[in-house]
């Protein structure tokens, strides 16, 4: 009997440790696992390295994790978004370090990490500041840069449907980085709007096979960043009341 369900988002992230590397799915708000991130804020782990395409908006979700000063390094491709004020402040202050990676190279590094490919040569970024200090080698006359696979201690991702084996389906463009992050993390934690028994998902349609998933937690009605921001919310709320957050 395989059953990867855990009871709550708080249980799901309970063992994230200080100094951990955490991949967080999402492209902008699409696919951002807001409830898992908020649980991680409650949990308190600090000195995190976050690998995510963006750095969040407003003061909820990923931006709230940054604002809580838990993240000392981000590896990302686009740390600027509408309503993105938290990261710029931490970056200018020198609290949060930035490793800027072209988006496709970031995706491929994560996929390589998950696939046991140690490093690869890509033409992307040759001749730009993002290739500086890296090995360049010609392949059939085309200069390429050597990039390394990327793994992490944890991945937090958001699915639409997950089964008890950890098979995951996504919603539209919320899929983005989640399937490759699930591959690249030593412990992959999925929040899914619907959690079903094994056998309820068509094996032909599975996007993330269960082998890549360690924990599944149901979050029936997940929040969208934009809605939280429009409602003027920030996390944690001004007067935190833990009993209401569970």
């Amino acid at each position, binding site marked *: 009997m395989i059953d990867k369900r855990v009871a709550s988002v708080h249980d799901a992230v309970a063992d994230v440790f200080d100094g951990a590397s955490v991949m967080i799915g999402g*492209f*902008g*708000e*699409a*696919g951002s696992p807001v409830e898992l991130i908020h649980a991680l804020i409650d949990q308190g782990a600090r000195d995190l390295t976050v690998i995510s*395409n963006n750095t969040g908006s407003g003061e909820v979700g990923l931006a709230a994790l940054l604002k809580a000063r838990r993240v000392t390094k981000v590896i990302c*491709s*686009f*740390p*600027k*978004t*509408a309503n993105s004020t938290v*990261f*710029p402040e931490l*970056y*200018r202050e020198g609290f949060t370090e*930035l490793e*800027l*990676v*072209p*988006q*496709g*190279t*970031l*995706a*491929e590094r*994560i*996929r390589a990490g998950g696939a046991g490919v140690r490093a690869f040569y*890509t*033409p*992307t*970024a*040759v*001749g*730009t*500041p*993002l290739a500086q200090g890296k090995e360049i080698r010609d392949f059939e006359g085309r200069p390429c840069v050597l990039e390394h696979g990327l793994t992490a201690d944890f991945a937090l991702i958001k699915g639409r449907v997950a089964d008890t084996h950890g098979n995951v389906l*996504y*919603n*539209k*463009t*919320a*899929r*983005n*980085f*989640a*399937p*490759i992050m699930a591959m690249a993390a030593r412990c992959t934690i999925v929040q899914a709007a619907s959690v079903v028994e094994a056998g309820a998902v068509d094996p032909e349609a599975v*996007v993330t096979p269960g082998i890549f998933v360690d924990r599944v937690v149901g979050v029936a009605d997940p929040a*969208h*960043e*934009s*809605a939280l921001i429009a409602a003027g919310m920030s996390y944690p709320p001004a007067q935190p009341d833990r009993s209401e957050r569970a």
Partner: protein
Amino acid sequence: MTEQTAVKGRTREQMAQRLALDIPNGWYVNLGIGIPELVARFVPEGRTLVYHTENGLLGMGPSPDEGAGDPELINAGKRHVTALPGAAYFHHADSFAMIRGGHLDLSVLGALQVAHNGDLANWSTGEPGAIPAVGGAMDLVAGVKKVFVITQHTTRDGAPKLVESCSYPLTGQRVVDRVYTDLAVIDVTPEGFRVVELSPGVDFETVQERTGAPLLPALTPASAD
């Protein structure tokens, strides 16, 4: 920069319309944020293009009606979009495999500067203190079969954007195939910039004056078309 005579070249919409004329039926196209997005409005009757958005959708359709959007169906500019019949969703590594692997026919991008050897700078002015952000631009220019730039010919201050050598940090080396500006359509050739077509009412000398590198005249005069 020097004072410039007012020249009425193409509007943004006209630039987009001119570029759209050059895209054959059936091409797989990635449109950048800003002026490039306008291109989709001007695809000539009878042609179908398939739009790719690097965050994981092929067969992207226009924006939905106000309020009808799904926050999880967005484009690379993080705006609500739709999916057309024949669409497919995929993850980021597959999406950039399409880009890096040369499967997309065309990438349309804005520019800060284009050098006459095809170097492109469009992601950073290199200002100290600015938050660097690159997104997928470097992947697109390195991987997509053809790269068209669409941009005003000069900056707001009148400085040329088509130059001998980019002063801003590069997005890619020798990557631009063609540039569509308000004043002209210009190819990047092994010999440098070559005018393909002047905008209506614009003469070669005016374009040369506002360009930071030598321009070669069109091989075939427009009247011969």
